[in-house]
């Protein structure tokens, strides 16, 4: 499928990388010649140098025949204009990155409609959302939600003293009478889709799916949980920090933001009612202590520097903050952070590339039961996907035990109306169900892909 990506910054490059690994034909557009050269050296893409809003550039990139056109530059207006022109030229779907906090939901909706843009994405808001979910369930290293948040998948790391280590999954299910499923396990370099006889060990990273209401209960039963983060310290007044603080405040939490730049502090204090804004250098440990770091339930490092985030998080973790999250952009640093013992590393790039992979795959299977949601799990080695079963799906009303699934596939949940089912062999899929599928090492773009 032909895809044009305008703007090859951090976000753009990540999207390009994941789309290339999905075997799409990608055209990368950027105004900086060096960036374009770099991109074409590393990835199997064609590069065009020029402004994304210039019709000459778009003509050279052949926007007229693009199935998907995405403008991901740092400038909202350029992005929207580029999408508008590309659409007029004949691009089928357009995605614009719009992140200015000044645009309200309604005005973005209006512009999207008027400019005929298929979707707008806001990476900062999306990663804030992800951070919010993790803070809500501090025991988890990662948290994904399906079907408008009614169904969840949480990733945990089994610590040495975990009661779960040494237990088989069948035992685990007998012991905790809740409705859940361990759908995917990462052990070292390998990712497994386990069956009942699988024995858990220390250090495993497990992915657990359950109904949203059930999840809290379950986690308490297993003794992994800590209490929901009620007071959170955020370093760096970035856009992500803004969205996160807003959500936390709405949930009644205490938020303290530390920022070096005085002007930014002022804007934040104007627009964030209730948050404590501190003007100071977050890298100064004395300041952190003075502001009560040890009394915090959560610590989120959101400065623009990966290195700073990692070091600050390490310090906070040593100081005994129960939940520490660091934002790390570069994946090689994320690995380092993992080695330092920082479990919870969030990359804003991953969130956005998941969205693009899903969008592109859904376009590829234009008929049938398309993907609704896609998450890459366990550093991209596994995927969780949500589909809506259409009436033409061949295996409707067939008991799951009679469907021959391909290897490394698992149906992790069926959501029917308001009810979520953790399926057993006797359950069936009916038309209109939302089906959550877990897979390792294979790509799905349609629900029927899971059948052998």
């Amino acid at each position, binding site marked *: 499928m032909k895809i044009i990506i305008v703007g090859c910054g951090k976000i753009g490059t990540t999207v390009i990388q994941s789309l290339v690994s999905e075997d799409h034909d990608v055209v990368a557009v950027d105004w900086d010649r*060096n960036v374009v050269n770099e991109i074409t050296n590393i990835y*199997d893409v064609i590069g065009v140098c020029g402004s994304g809003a210039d019709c000459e550039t778009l003509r050279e990139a052949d926007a007229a025949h693009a199935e998907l056109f995405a403008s991901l530059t740092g400038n909202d207006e350029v992005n929207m204009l580029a999408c508008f022109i590309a659409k007029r030229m004949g691009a089928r779907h357009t995605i614009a990155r719009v992140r200015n906090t000044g645009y309200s939901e309604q005005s973005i909706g209006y512009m999207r409609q008027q400019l005929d843009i298929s979707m707008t994405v806001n990476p900062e808001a999306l990663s804030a959302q992800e951070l919010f979910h993790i803070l809500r369930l501090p025991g988890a290293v990662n948290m994904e939600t399906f079907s408008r948040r009614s169904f969840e998948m949480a990733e945990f790391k089994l610590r040495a003293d975990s009661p779960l280590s040494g237990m088989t999954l069948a035992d685990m299910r007998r012991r905790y009478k809740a409705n859940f499923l361990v759908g995917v396990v990462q052990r070292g370099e390998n990712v497994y889709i386990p069956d009942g006889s699988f024995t858990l060990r220390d250090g495993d990273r497990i992915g657990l799916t359950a109904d949203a209401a059930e999840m809290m209960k379950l986690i308490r039963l297993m003794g992994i949980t800590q209490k929901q983060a009620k007071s959170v310290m955020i370093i760096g007044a970035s856009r992500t920090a803004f969205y996160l603080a807003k959500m936390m405040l709405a949930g009644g939490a205490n938020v303290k933001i530390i920022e070096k730049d005085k002007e930014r502090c002022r804007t934040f204090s104007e627009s964030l009612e209730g948050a404590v804004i501190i003007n100071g250098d977050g890298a100064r440990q004395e300041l952190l202590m003075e502001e009560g770091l040890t009394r915090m339930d959560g610590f989120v490092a959101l400065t623009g520097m990966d290195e700073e985030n990692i070091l600050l998080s390490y310090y906070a973790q040593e100081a005994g903050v129960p939940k520490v999250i660091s934002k790390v952009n570069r994946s090689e640093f994320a690995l380092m952070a993992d080695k330092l013992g920082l479990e919870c590393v969030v990359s804003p790039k991953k969130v956005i590339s998941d969205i693009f992979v899903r969008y592109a795959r859904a376009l590829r299977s234009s008929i049938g039961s398309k993907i609704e949601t896609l998450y890459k799990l366990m550093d991209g080695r596994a995927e969780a996907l949500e589909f809506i079963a259409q009436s033409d799906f061949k295996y409707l009303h067939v008991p799951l035990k009679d469907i021959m699934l391909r290897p490394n596939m698992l149906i992790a949940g069926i959501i029917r109306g308001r009810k979520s089912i953790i399926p057993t062999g006797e359950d069936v899929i009916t038309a209109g169900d939302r089906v959550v599928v877990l897979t390792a090492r294979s790509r799905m773009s349609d629900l029927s892909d899971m059948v052998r």
Partner: protein
Amino acid sequence: MNRRMVIFTLGQMVLLEAVLLLLPILVSALYGEACIKALALTAGGCVLAGALLMLAGRTKNRVIYAKEGFLIVSLAWISLSALGALPFFISGEIPNYIDAFFETVSGFTTTGASILTNLEKMSRGLLFWRSFTHWVGGMGVLVFIMAIVPNVSERSIHIIRAEMPGPIVGKLVPRVKDTAKILYLIYIGLTVLEIILLVAGKMPLYDSIVHTFGTAGTGGFGIKGDSIASYSPYLQWVITVFMLLFGINFNVFYLLLARRFRAAAKSTEVWTYLAIVGVSVAAIAVNIRHMYATIAETVRLSAFQVASIITTTGYSTCDFNLWPGFSKSVLLVLMFIGACAGSTGGGLKGSRLMILVKMGRNELRHLIHPRSVTTVKLEGKQLDAATLHNVANYFILYMLAFFSLFLAVSLDRFDIETDFSAVAACFNNIGPGFGAVGPAASYAAYSPLSKIVLSLAMLLGRLEIFPVILMFVPSTWTKK
């Protein structure tokens, strides 16, 4: 450096050579010739060696950088030639291995310089193989591998860049694999078209195929002592036109096929190339008018020779060694200009020459207006400093390499015209030169040392110097 990936790709390539050898095996089977044994033996050896190399080079790490790309290409071409020479040597039709190696390098690099003095004596299977190496070498072996083998390597653009001639190698479509496929489809399409046109002109099928291979790769191996001279004027014109076509940047063909005519017409390199051809044909025709009976014949001979030299093919329809000095000088200049970038031809390449001229003009402007700020544009696009540096450095190395080779070859006992034109003809992948290596003669009389030097010249010319020179730079090989 990712040595394993280099070895693995080499293995793939050697295996490919075994597959390529199937074609001449088929031909010699059809004619029931004895050389089939030598061909089959070589193919078997290639299968074995290729499999071993691929086994030795198994690796999970498929990332390569520019350095590996250069190395893969130069090693691939040398081993391909070394193995490809075996059938000639084993069958005894070229008893000396150095001669056989020279002949095969000349084939793969699409030079067309030959040490054979009596072509009519050779078996048809081996002559077919000799010409087939032109066809394979023209578009590039590794480009071919890109096109057919799934998941060659990440970043395989480095390999294409090292193998495709020209200062700027761009992709036609986003993926390397698809680009390679499109290039080969155009190549195959033009080849088939030429064979059909030649057969329609009553050239025997075998001759048509062999001559088309020579034209397509801009090589120049024929099967007759007098090259193309004994064929009808129609056939000569067909070959003239196709030589010129294969000298055009293949991107232009792609744009034409994709119906992007305006973009295709923007290619100033092609227009310059055609203009040079036109002017040269006219100049030589006027110069040699008194030697031939009719204007038609004069123009035909002039056009054929010009097309043959500028595209670096090296076919001939008359002994241009006998032409007046001016005509020979024009041909000698054309040898250095060469065809367009992105074609199968050799030489300095039109686009490089255009960039050099523009840089020179800017330099002059700087002398007059020391504070002037200038840019160099090619086909409407501004070139960055790195490209300009590359082109300038290439030219320096090109000249250095040329004169070093010239000095080395002049140790032999020939006159200066012969030596100079021999090196020019080999280095620019043309084939015949002037004097003792003219179209009616051969390279057989050179000493073994000179033959090796000239083989090196051909490889340097075809791979555009950098990959071959990098092989001799110690830091390429160290682990640091």
